[in-house]
Protein backbone atom coordinates (compact mmCIF):
# COMPACT_ATOMS: atom_id res chain seq x y z
CA UNK A 1 0.00 0.00 0.00
CA UNK A 2 1.49 3.33 -1.05
CA UNK A 3 1.81 6.18 1.40
CA UNK A 4 -0.93 8.72 1.19
CA UNK A 5 -0.09 12.29 0.33
CA UNK A 6 -2.90 13.99 2.17
CA UNK A 7 -5.39 11.23 2.90
CA UNK A 8 -8.27 13.01 1.25
CA UNK A 9 -11.32 11.27 -0.14
CA UNK A 10 -10.38 12.61 -3.59
CA UNK A 11 -6.93 11.07 -3.31
CA UNK A 12 -8.32 7.69 -2.27
CA UNK A 13 -10.82 7.59 -5.11
CA UNK A 14 -8.21 8.61 -7.68
CA UNK A 15 -5.78 6.01 -6.35
CA UNK A 16 -8.49 3.37 -6.58
CA UNK A 17 -9.07 4.26 -10.21
CA UNK A 18 -12.63 5.45 -9.72
CA UNK A 19 -13.87 7.88 -12.36
CA UNK A 20 -14.13 10.89 -10.07
CA UNK A 21 -16.55 13.78 -10.28
CA UNK A 22 -15.76 17.24 -8.99
CA UNK A 23 -17.75 20.45 -9.25
CA UNK A 24 -17.32 24.10 -8.50
CA UNK A 25 -18.73 26.15 -5.67
CA UNK A 26 -18.22 29.89 -5.98
CA UNK A 27 -18.41 31.70 -2.60
CA UNK A 28 -20.85 34.63 -2.34
CA UNK A 29 -19.97 38.31 -2.65
CA UNK A 30 -21.33 38.90 0.85
CA UNK A 31 -21.59 37.02 4.13
CA UNK A 32 -24.73 35.28 2.91
CA UNK A 33 -24.55 31.77 4.37
CA UNK A 34 -27.69 30.70 2.57
CA UNK A 35 -25.97 31.02 -0.78
CA UNK A 36 -23.33 28.54 0.30
CA UNK A 37 -25.86 26.31 2.05
CA UNK A 38 -28.04 25.95 -1.03
CA UNK A 39 -25.03 25.19 -3.24
CA UNK A 40 -23.86 22.61 -0.71
CA UNK A 41 -27.24 20.88 -0.80
CA UNK A 42 -27.28 20.95 -4.61
CA UNK A 43 -23.93 19.18 -4.70
CA UNK A 44 -24.25 16.87 -1.70
CA UNK A 45 -23.70 13.20 -2.66
CA UNK A 46 -23.63 14.22 -6.33
CA UNK A 47 -19.87 14.80 -6.51
CA UNK A 48 -16.72 13.61 -4.77
CA UNK A 49 -15.21 17.00 -4.04
CA UNK A 50 -15.95 20.66 -4.71
CA UNK A 51 -13.60 23.40 -5.86
CA UNK A 52 -13.90 26.55 -3.81
CA UNK A 53 -12.85 29.42 -6.01
CA UNK A 54 -10.43 32.14 -4.87
CA UNK A 55 -11.79 35.59 -5.83
CA UNK A 56 -12.64 34.22 -9.26
CA UNK A 57 -12.50 36.67 -12.16
CA UNK A 58 -10.80 39.00 -9.68
CA UNK A 59 -14.03 39.82 -7.86
CA UNK A 60 -14.00 39.98 -4.07
CA UNK A 61 -15.83 37.10 -2.44
CA UNK A 62 -15.66 35.11 0.77
CA UNK A 63 -12.15 33.67 0.84
CA UNK A 64 -11.66 30.17 -0.53
CA UNK A 65 -10.14 28.68 2.61
CA UNK A 66 -12.79 29.96 4.99
CA UNK A 67 -15.53 28.83 2.63
CA UNK A 68 -13.71 25.50 2.36
CA UNK A 69 -13.75 25.07 6.13
CA UNK A 70 -17.45 25.97 6.21
CA UNK A 71 -18.26 23.53 3.43
CA UNK A 72 -16.23 20.74 5.07
CA UNK A 73 -18.25 21.19 8.26
CA UNK A 74 -21.35 20.64 6.16
CA UNK A 75 -19.91 17.33 4.98
CA UNK A 76 -18.55 18.09 1.51
CA UNK A 77 -14.91 17.66 0.63
CA UNK A 78 -13.40 20.94 -0.53
CA UNK A 79 -10.59 21.60 -2.98
CA UNK A 80 -9.64 25.14 -2.08
CA UNK A 81 -8.19 27.21 -4.88
CA UNK A 82 -5.17 29.46 -4.43
CA UNK A 83 -4.22 32.12 -6.93
CA UNK A 84 -0.97 34.07 -7.12
CA UNK A 85 -2.66 37.37 -7.92
CA UNK A 86 -3.51 38.58 -4.42
CA UNK A 87 -0.90 37.13 -2.10
CA UNK A 88 2.85 36.75 -1.96
CA UNK A 89 4.79 33.67 -0.86
CA UNK A 90 4.52 34.61 2.84
CA UNK A 91 0.76 34.99 2.76
CA UNK A 92 0.19 31.87 0.69
CA UNK A 93 2.33 29.68 2.94
CA UNK A 94 0.63 31.07 6.04
CA UNK A 95 -2.73 30.26 4.45
CA UNK A 96 -1.58 26.74 3.59
CA UNK A 97 -0.61 26.13 7.21
CA UNK A 98 -3.97 27.46 8.32
CA UNK A 99 -5.91 25.41 5.79
CA UNK A 100 -4.17 22.22 6.92
CA UNK A 101 -4.69 23.11 10.57
CA UNK A 102 -8.40 23.34 9.82
CA UNK A 103 -8.55 19.98 8.11
CA UNK A 104 -8.47 20.89 4.43
CA UNK A 105 -6.67 18.36 2.26
CA UNK A 106 -6.90 19.34 -1.39
CA UNK A 107 -5.53 22.48 -2.99
CA UNK A 108 -5.70 23.77 -6.55
CA UNK A 109 -2.79 25.99 -7.59
CA UNK A 110 -3.64 28.70 -10.10
CA UNK A 111 -2.04 31.80 -11.57
CA UNK A 112 -5.31 33.71 -11.22
CA UNK A 113 -7.29 35.99 -13.51
CA UNK A 114 -5.76 39.40 -14.12
CA UNK A 115 -7.17 42.10 -11.84
CA UNK A 116 -8.36 44.11 -14.84
CA UNK A 117 -11.24 41.62 -15.28
CA UNK A 118 -12.67 42.17 -11.84
CA UNK A 119 -14.25 44.80 -9.64
CA UNK A 120 -10.99 46.32 -8.39
CA UNK A 121 -9.07 46.95 -11.62
CA UNK A 122 -6.93 49.55 -9.84
CA UNK A 123 -5.55 46.99 -7.39
CA UNK A 124 -1.83 46.21 -7.29
CA UNK A 125 -1.21 42.72 -8.57
CA UNK A 126 1.17 40.44 -6.71
CA UNK A 127 2.33 37.49 -8.85
CA UNK A 128 5.34 37.13 -6.56
CA UNK A 129 5.28 33.51 -7.75
CA UNK A 130 3.40 31.83 -10.59
CA UNK A 131 1.28 28.69 -10.64
CA UNK A 132 4.19 26.38 -11.45
CA UNK A 133 6.31 27.84 -8.66
CA UNK A 134 3.29 27.55 -6.37
CA UNK A 135 2.91 23.84 -7.14
CA UNK A 136 6.56 23.29 -6.30
CA UNK A 137 6.25 25.31 -3.10
CA UNK A 138 3.26 23.25 -1.87
CA UNK A 139 5.02 20.03 -2.82
CA UNK A 140 8.25 21.03 -1.07
CA UNK A 141 6.25 21.91 2.03
CA UNK A 142 4.66 18.46 1.97
CA UNK A 143 7.50 16.22 0.80
CA UNK A 144 10.70 18.07 1.72
CA UNK A 145 9.03 19.61 4.77
CA UNK A 146 10.53 23.00 4.04
CA UNK A 147 9.24 26.47 3.39
CA UNK A 148 10.01 28.15 0.11
CA UNK A 149 13.03 29.84 1.75
CA UNK A 150 14.45 26.42 2.63
CA UNK A 151 13.77 26.48 6.38
CA UNK A 152 12.26 23.39 7.96
CA UNK A 153 8.62 23.56 8.95
CA UNK A 154 8.92 23.42 12.71
CA UNK A 155 7.99 25.89 15.39
CA UNK A 156 11.46 25.97 16.97
CA UNK A 157 14.77 24.17 16.55
CA UNK A 158 13.77 21.54 19.09
CA UNK A 159 10.16 21.16 17.98
CA UNK A 160 9.00 18.39 15.71
CA UNK A 161 8.50 19.02 12.04
CA UNK A 162 4.78 19.45 11.35
CA UNK A 163 4.27 20.01 7.66
CA UNK A 164 1.01 20.80 5.87
CA UNK A 165 -0.04 17.96 3.58
CA UNK A 166 -2.18 18.49 0.52
CA UNK A 167 -3.19 16.68 -2.60
CA UNK A 168 -1.95 19.18 -5.17
CA UNK A 169 -4.05 20.13 -8.14
CA UNK A 170 -3.61 22.57 -11.00
CA UNK A 171 -5.37 23.66 -14.15
CA UNK A 172 -4.47 22.96 -17.75
CA UNK A 173 -5.80 24.55 -20.87
CA UNK A 174 -5.49 22.34 -23.96
CA UNK A 175 -6.92 25.12 -26.13
CA UNK A 176 -4.79 28.22 -25.49
CA UNK A 177 -1.94 29.32 -27.73
CA UNK A 178 0.62 28.27 -28.70
CA UNK A 179 -1.35 25.04 -29.16
CA UNK A 180 1.76 22.94 -29.71
CA UNK A 181 3.11 24.10 -26.34
CA UNK A 182 0.13 23.01 -24.23
CA UNK A 183 1.29 19.48 -23.42
CA UNK A 184 4.74 20.85 -22.58
CA UNK A 185 3.12 23.21 -20.13
CA UNK A 186 1.32 20.27 -18.53
CA UNK A 187 4.63 18.45 -18.34
CA UNK A 188 6.18 21.45 -16.55
CA UNK A 189 3.42 21.20 -13.96
CA UNK A 190 4.03 17.47 -13.61
CA UNK A 191 7.73 18.18 -13.11
CA UNK A 192 6.81 20.73 -10.46
CA UNK A 193 4.93 18.00 -8.58
CA UNK A 194 1.23 18.27 -9.36
CA UNK A 195 -1.01 15.31 -8.43
CA UNK A 196 -4.16 16.07 -10.38
CA UNK A 197 -5.26 18.38 -13.17
CA UNK A 198 -8.61 19.92 -13.97
CA UNK A 199 -8.79 21.19 -17.52
CA UNK A 200 -10.32 24.37 -18.89
CA UNK A 201 -13.89 23.72 -20.06
CA UNK A 202 -13.97 21.61 -23.16
CA UNK A 203 -16.23 22.10 -26.18
CA UNK A 204 -13.84 21.05 -28.92
CA UNK A 205 -13.78 17.31 -28.28
CA UNK A 206 -11.49 16.55 -31.23
CA UNK A 207 -8.84 18.96 -30.05
CA UNK A 208 -9.12 17.59 -26.52
CA UNK A 209 -8.72 14.05 -27.83
CA UNK A 210 -5.57 15.06 -29.70
CA UNK A 211 -4.20 16.69 -26.56
CA UNK A 212 -5.01 13.58 -24.49
CA UNK A 213 -3.35 11.33 -27.07
CA UNK A 214 -0.14 13.29 -26.72
CA UNK A 215 -0.47 13.29 -22.93
CA UNK A 216 -0.82 9.50 -23.00
CA UNK A 217 1.97 9.01 -25.53
CA UNK A 218 4.34 10.83 -23.16
CA UNK A 219 3.08 8.75 -20.23
CA UNK A 220 2.02 11.86 -18.33
CA UNK A 221 -1.37 10.31 -17.43
CA UNK A 222 0.53 7.88 -15.24
CA UNK A 223 2.12 10.70 -13.28
CA UNK A 224 -0.91 12.95 -12.92
CA UNK A 225 -4.66 12.31 -12.77
CA UNK A 226 -6.49 14.31 -15.40
CA UNK A 227 -10.06 15.46 -14.88
CA UNK A 228 -11.74 16.79 -18.00
CA UNK A 229 -13.50 20.11 -17.47
CA UNK A 230 -17.02 20.85 -18.69
CA UNK A 231 -19.34 23.82 -18.37
CA UNK A 232 -22.97 23.16 -19.24
CA UNK A 233 -24.40 25.73 -21.64
CA UNK A 234 -27.57 27.50 -20.57
CA UNK A 235 -28.25 29.58 -23.66
CA UNK A 236 -27.01 30.29 -27.14
CA UNK A 237 -26.01 33.76 -25.95
CA UNK A 238 -23.76 32.28 -23.27
CA UNK A 239 -22.14 29.99 -25.83
CA UNK A 240 -21.44 32.87 -28.21
CA UNK A 241 -20.14 35.02 -25.37
CA UNK A 242 -17.72 32.29 -24.35
CA UNK A 243 -16.58 31.88 -27.94
CA UNK A 244 -16.06 35.60 -28.52
CA UNK A 245 -14.98 36.95 -25.17
CA UNK A 246 -13.31 34.27 -23.06
CA UNK A 247 -9.69 33.75 -24.05
CA UNK A 248 -8.54 30.17 -24.26
CA UNK A 249 -12.01 28.71 -24.86
CA UNK A 250 -12.48 27.08 -28.23
CA UNK A 251 -15.98 26.38 -29.48
CA UNK A 252 -16.27 24.66 -32.88
CA UNK A 253 -18.91 25.85 -35.36
CA UNK A 254 -20.60 22.44 -35.16
CA UNK A 255 -21.35 23.04 -31.48
CA UNK A 256 -22.70 26.52 -32.17
CA UNK A 257 -24.89 25.02 -34.93
CA UNK A 258 -26.18 22.37 -32.58
CA UNK A 259 -27.35 25.00 -30.10
CA UNK A 260 -28.77 27.21 -32.84
CA UNK A 261 -30.92 24.28 -33.94
CA UNK A 262 -31.92 23.25 -30.44
CA UNK A 263 -35.44 23.98 -29.24
CA UNK A 264 -34.41 24.20 -25.61
CA UNK A 265 -30.86 25.39 -25.05
CA UNK A 266 -30.78 24.39 -21.37
CA UNK A 267 -31.82 20.82 -22.11
CA UNK A 268 -29.39 20.68 -24.99
CA UNK A 269 -26.68 22.01 -22.69
CA UNK A 270 -27.24 19.19 -20.25
CA UNK A 271 -27.45 16.58 -23.01
CA UNK A 272 -24.22 17.82 -24.57
CA UNK A 273 -22.49 17.69 -21.21
CA UNK A 274 -23.69 14.13 -20.54
CA UNK A 275 -22.51 13.01 -23.98
CA UNK A 276 -19.12 14.58 -23.31
CA UNK A 277 -18.75 12.78 -19.99
CA UNK A 278 -19.67 9.45 -21.59
CA UNK A 279 -16.97 10.06 -24.19
CA UNK A 280 -14.39 11.04 -21.56
CA UNK A 281 -15.02 7.77 -19.74
CA UNK A 282 -13.86 5.89 -22.82
CA UNK A 283 -10.76 8.02 -23.34
CA UNK A 284 -7.49 6.63 -22.15
CA UNK A 285 -5.91 8.74 -19.43
CA UNK A 286 -9.01 10.64 -18.32
CA UNK A 287 -9.46 10.02 -14.60
CA UNK A 288 -12.66 11.96 -14.05
CA UNK A 289 -14.71 15.00 -14.85
CA UNK A 290 -14.80 18.49 -13.37
CA UNK A 291 -18.20 20.14 -13.81
CA UNK A 292 -18.07 23.92 -13.70
CA UNK A 293 -21.77 24.79 -13.69
CA UNK A 294 -21.28 28.51 -13.16
CA UNK A 295 -24.07 29.74 -10.86
CA UNK A 296 -26.04 26.68 -11.96
CA UNK A 297 -25.10 24.17 -9.29
CA UNK A 298 -28.62 22.70 -9.45
CA UNK A 299 -27.81 21.23 -12.85
CA UNK A 300 -24.93 19.11 -11.57
CA UNK A 301 -26.85 16.23 -9.97
CA UNK A 302 -28.92 15.66 -13.10
CA UNK A 303 -25.82 15.63 -15.28
CA UNK A 304 -24.02 13.17 -13.03
CA UNK A 305 -27.09 10.93 -12.86
CA UNK A 306 -27.65 10.97 -16.62
CA UNK A 307 -23.99 10.10 -17.13
CA UNK A 308 -24.64 6.95 -15.01
CA UNK A 309 -22.26 8.17 -12.32
CA UNK A 310 -24.65 7.98 -9.35
CA UNK A 311 -24.41 6.95 -6.63
CA UNK A 312 -20.94 8.24 -5.89
CA UNK A 313 -18.57 5.67 -4.40
CA UNK A 314 -17.68 5.54 -0.74
CA UNK A 315 -14.44 7.38 -0.06
CA UNK A 316 -13.26 5.27 2.85
Amino acid at each position, binding site marked *: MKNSKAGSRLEKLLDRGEFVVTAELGPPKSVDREVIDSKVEALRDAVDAVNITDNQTAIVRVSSISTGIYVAEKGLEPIFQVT*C*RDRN*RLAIQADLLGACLNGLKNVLCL*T*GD*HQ*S*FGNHPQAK*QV*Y*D*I*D*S*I*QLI*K*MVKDMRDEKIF*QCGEEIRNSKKAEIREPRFLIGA*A*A*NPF*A*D*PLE*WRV*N*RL*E*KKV*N*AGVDFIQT*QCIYDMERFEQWMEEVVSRGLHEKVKILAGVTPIRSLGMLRYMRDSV*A*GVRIPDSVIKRFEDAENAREEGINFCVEQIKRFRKMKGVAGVHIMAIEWENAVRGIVESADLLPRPNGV
Partner: protein
Amino acid sequence: MIVAEQKPIGEILKKLPEVEKLLVLGCDTCVTVCLAGGEKEVKVMCSAIRMADKKIGEVTGFSIERQCDREFFKEIEAVVKESDAILSLACGAGVQMLSDYFEGKLVIPGLNTHFIGSNEGAGYWLERCLGCGDCMLDITGGICPKTRCSKGLMNGPCGGSENGMCEIDPLNTECGWYLIYERLKKLNMLQNMMTNQPPRDWSRAHDGGPRKLLREDIQP
Protein backbone atom coordinates in the same frame (compact mmCIF):
# COMPACT_ATOMS: atom_id res chain seq x y z
CA MET B 1 15.46 55.42 -22.21
CA ILE B 2 13.02 56.82 -19.66
CA VAL B 3 9.64 57.36 -21.30
CA ALA B 4 7.36 60.04 -19.92
CA GLU B 5 4.45 62.15 -21.09
CA GLN B 6 3.15 65.55 -20.18
CA LYS B 7 0.41 65.79 -17.64
CA PRO B 8 -2.78 67.28 -19.08
CA ILE B 9 -2.40 71.07 -19.21
CA GLY B 10 -5.47 71.48 -16.99
CA GLU B 11 -3.81 69.45 -14.23
CA ILE B 12 -0.56 71.38 -14.57
CA LEU B 13 -2.35 74.74 -14.34
CA LYS B 14 -4.21 73.55 -11.27
CA LYS B 15 -0.94 72.57 -9.59
CA LEU B 16 0.85 75.82 -10.45
CA PRO B 17 0.98 78.39 -7.65
CA GLU B 18 0.21 82.00 -8.58
CA VAL B 19 3.72 83.41 -8.21
CA GLU B 20 5.57 86.41 -9.53
CA LYS B 21 8.20 84.44 -11.44
CA LEU B 22 7.85 80.90 -12.72
CA LEU B 23 10.66 78.92 -14.32
CA VAL B 24 9.75 76.11 -16.74
CA LEU B 25 12.73 73.79 -16.87
CA GLY B 26 13.24 71.17 -19.57
CA CYS B 27 15.61 68.24 -19.77
CA ASP B 28 17.55 67.54 -22.96
CA THR B 29 18.02 63.80 -22.61
CA CYS B 30 15.37 61.03 -22.45
CA VAL B 31 12.28 63.23 -22.25
CA THR B 32 13.47 65.26 -25.22
CA VAL B 33 13.65 62.09 -27.30
CA CYS B 34 10.16 61.06 -26.20
CA LEU B 35 8.83 64.55 -26.99
CA ALA B 36 7.66 65.31 -23.47
CA GLY B 37 10.04 67.76 -21.85
CA GLY B 38 12.73 69.12 -24.18
CA GLU B 39 13.46 72.64 -25.34
CA LYS B 40 10.56 72.62 -27.79
CA GLU B 41 8.06 71.44 -25.20
CA VAL B 42 9.31 74.08 -22.75
CA LYS B 43 8.50 76.83 -25.30
CA VAL B 44 5.01 75.49 -25.91
CA MET B 45 4.41 75.08 -22.18
CA CYS B 46 5.50 78.65 -21.46
CA SER B 47 3.05 80.00 -24.07
CA ALA B 48 0.24 77.88 -22.69
CA ILE B 49 0.81 79.14 -19.16
CA ARG B 50 1.04 82.77 -20.32
CA MET B 51 -2.26 82.43 -22.15
CA ALA B 52 -3.99 80.72 -19.26
CA ASP B 53 -6.17 82.51 -16.78
CA LYS B 54 -3.60 82.36 -14.03
CA LYS B 55 -2.03 85.17 -11.97
CA ILE B 56 1.57 84.44 -12.77
CA GLY B 57 3.74 87.49 -13.38
CA GLU B 58 6.55 86.17 -15.55
CA VAL B 59 7.15 82.81 -17.17
CA THR B 60 10.70 81.95 -18.18
CA GLY B 61 11.74 78.86 -20.10
CA PHE B 62 15.07 77.07 -19.87
CA SER B 63 16.47 73.66 -20.55
CA ILE B 64 19.54 71.80 -19.29
CA GLU B 65 21.39 68.69 -20.44
CA ARG B 66 20.15 66.45 -17.60
CA GLN B 67 18.14 67.14 -14.47
CA CYS B 68 19.29 63.86 -12.93
CA ASP B 69 22.88 65.09 -12.74
CA ARG B 70 24.10 67.69 -10.26
CA GLU B 71 26.78 69.08 -12.56
CA PHE B 72 24.25 70.64 -14.94
CA PHE B 73 22.51 72.69 -12.25
CA LYS B 74 25.41 75.14 -11.87
CA GLU B 75 24.46 77.05 -15.02
CA ILE B 76 20.92 77.73 -13.82
CA GLU B 77 21.68 78.81 -10.25
CA ALA B 78 21.14 82.48 -11.09
CA VAL B 79 17.86 81.98 -12.96
CA VAL B 80 16.53 79.67 -10.26
CA LYS B 81 17.39 82.25 -7.60
CA GLU B 82 15.25 84.74 -9.50
CA SER B 83 12.29 82.38 -9.69
CA ASP B 84 9.61 81.72 -7.11
CA ALA B 85 8.76 78.23 -8.34
CA ILE B 86 9.89 75.71 -10.98
CA LEU B 87 7.78 73.59 -13.27
CA SER B 88 10.05 70.69 -14.16
CA LEU B 89 9.56 68.83 -17.42
CA ALA B 90 11.98 66.06 -16.39
CA CYS B 91 11.30 62.50 -15.32
CA GLY B 92 10.70 61.71 -11.64
CA ALA B 93 14.42 61.33 -11.01
CA GLY B 94 15.06 64.79 -12.45
CA VAL B 95 12.28 66.41 -10.43
CA GLN B 96 13.71 64.92 -7.24
CA MET B 97 17.31 65.85 -8.01
CA LEU B 98 16.20 69.40 -8.77
CA SER B 99 14.26 69.58 -5.49
CA ASP B 100 17.30 68.33 -3.58
CA TYR B 101 19.73 70.73 -5.20
CA PHE B 102 17.55 73.80 -4.85
CA GLU B 103 16.11 72.90 -1.47
CA GLY B 104 13.53 75.42 -0.39
CA LYS B 105 12.41 76.10 -3.93
CA LEU B 106 8.99 74.72 -4.86
CA VAL B 107 9.23 72.25 -7.74
CA ILE B 108 6.11 71.04 -9.57
CA PRO B 109 6.24 67.94 -11.79
CA GLY B 110 4.96 68.55 -15.31
CA LEU B 111 5.31 64.99 -16.54
CA ASN B 112 4.10 61.54 -15.65
CA THR B 113 7.07 59.19 -15.83
CA HIS B 114 6.07 55.84 -17.27
CA PHE B 115 8.79 53.33 -18.00
CA ILE B 116 12.15 52.26 -19.40
CA GLY B 117 11.32 51.64 -23.00
CA SER B 118 12.11 51.78 -26.67
CA ASN B 119 11.16 54.07 -29.52
CA GLU B 120 8.97 51.92 -31.75
CA GLY B 121 7.98 54.51 -34.36
CA ALA B 122 6.48 57.98 -34.64
CA GLY B 123 5.02 58.79 -31.23
CA TYR B 124 5.05 55.18 -30.08
CA TRP B 125 7.06 53.87 -27.16
CA LEU B 126 7.01 50.44 -25.56
CA GLU B 127 7.97 49.32 -22.06
CA ARG B 128 10.92 46.94 -22.24
CA CYS B 129 12.56 46.76 -18.82
CA LEU B 130 11.39 46.82 -15.20
CA GLY B 131 14.85 47.37 -13.79
CA CYS B 132 14.47 44.20 -11.71
CA GLY B 133 18.20 43.94 -11.01
CA ASP B 134 18.52 40.35 -12.19
CA CYS B 135 18.55 40.07 -15.97
CA MET B 136 17.61 36.77 -17.59
CA LEU B 137 17.14 37.89 -21.18
CA ASP B 138 19.60 35.26 -22.41
CA ILE B 139 17.16 32.54 -21.36
CA THR B 140 14.09 34.14 -22.92
CA GLY B 141 15.51 35.11 -26.28
CA GLY B 142 15.90 38.81 -25.50
CA ILE B 143 12.26 39.37 -24.49
CA CYS B 144 11.57 40.18 -20.84
CA PRO B 145 8.75 38.09 -19.35
CA LYS B 146 8.54 40.26 -16.23
CA THR B 147 7.86 43.28 -18.41
CA ARG B 148 6.03 41.89 -21.42
CA CYS B 149 3.71 39.39 -19.66
CA SER B 150 0.78 41.18 -18.02
CA LYS B 151 1.19 38.98 -14.97
CA GLY B 152 4.98 38.97 -15.06
CA LEU B 153 4.99 35.17 -15.13
CA MET B 154 8.28 33.30 -15.13
CA ASN B 155 6.75 30.11 -16.54
CA GLY B 156 4.29 31.24 -19.19
CA PRO B 157 2.29 31.41 -21.27
CA CYS B 158 -0.83 31.15 -19.14
CA GLY B 159 -4.19 29.95 -20.45
CA GLY B 160 -5.15 33.43 -21.57
CA SER B 161 -2.90 33.53 -24.64
CA GLU B 162 -4.89 33.57 -27.86
CA ASN B 163 -3.65 34.24 -31.39
CA GLY B 164 -0.49 35.70 -29.96
CA MET B 165 -2.39 38.26 -27.91
CA CYS B 166 -2.97 38.69 -24.18
CA GLU B 167 -6.47 38.20 -22.80
CA ILE B 168 -6.38 41.48 -20.90
CA ASP B 169 -6.39 43.44 -24.18
CA PRO B 170 -6.58 41.12 -27.19
CA LEU B 171 -6.49 43.96 -29.71
CA ASN B 172 -3.45 45.86 -28.47
CA THR B 173 -1.35 43.79 -26.10
CA GLU B 174 0.82 40.95 -27.32
CA CYS B 175 1.31 37.86 -25.18
CA GLY B 176 4.89 38.23 -23.95
CA TRP B 177 5.31 34.49 -23.63
CA TYR B 178 4.00 33.90 -27.13
CA LEU B 179 6.72 36.29 -28.36
CA ILE B 180 9.30 34.42 -26.28
CA TYR B 181 8.08 31.10 -27.66
CA GLU B 182 8.35 32.28 -31.28
CA ARG B 183 11.77 33.84 -30.66
CA LEU B 184 13.20 30.77 -28.95
CA LYS B 185 11.86 28.61 -31.78
CA LYS B 186 13.86 30.70 -34.26
CA LEU B 187 16.94 30.45 -32.04
CA ASN B 188 16.41 26.70 -31.75
CA MET B 189 16.37 27.16 -27.97
CA LEU B 190 12.80 26.12 -27.10
CA GLN B 191 14.25 23.75 -24.53
CA ASN B 192 14.84 26.83 -22.36
CA MET B 193 11.10 27.05 -21.81
CA MET B 194 10.93 23.51 -20.42
CA THR B 195 13.01 24.50 -17.40
CA ASN B 196 10.86 25.41 -14.42
CA GLN B 197 12.11 28.84 -13.40
CA PRO B 198 12.31 29.25 -9.61
CA PRO B 199 10.74 32.17 -7.74
CA ARG B 200 12.55 35.47 -8.28
CA ASP B 201 14.69 37.22 -5.71
CA TRP B 202 12.76 40.46 -5.39
CA SER B 203 15.21 41.89 -2.89
CA ARG B 204 17.30 42.81 -5.93
CA ALA B 205 14.40 44.82 -7.30
CA HIS B 206 12.59 47.76 -5.76
CA ASP B 207 11.16 45.55 -3.00
CA GLY B 208 14.55 45.69 -1.31
CA GLY B 209 14.06 49.45 -0.80
CA PRO B 210 15.43 52.27 -2.97
CA ARG B 211 18.45 50.84 -4.70
CA LYS B 212 21.92 52.30 -4.78
CA LEU B 213 24.78 51.43 -7.07
CA LEU B 214 28.21 52.23 -5.70
CA ARG B 215 31.19 51.27 -7.86
CA GLU B 216 34.16 50.84 -5.52
CA ASP B 217 36.54 50.83 -8.49
CA ILE B 218 35.76 54.41 -9.42
CA GLN B 219 35.66 56.00 -5.99
CA PRO B 220 38.13 58.89 -5.49
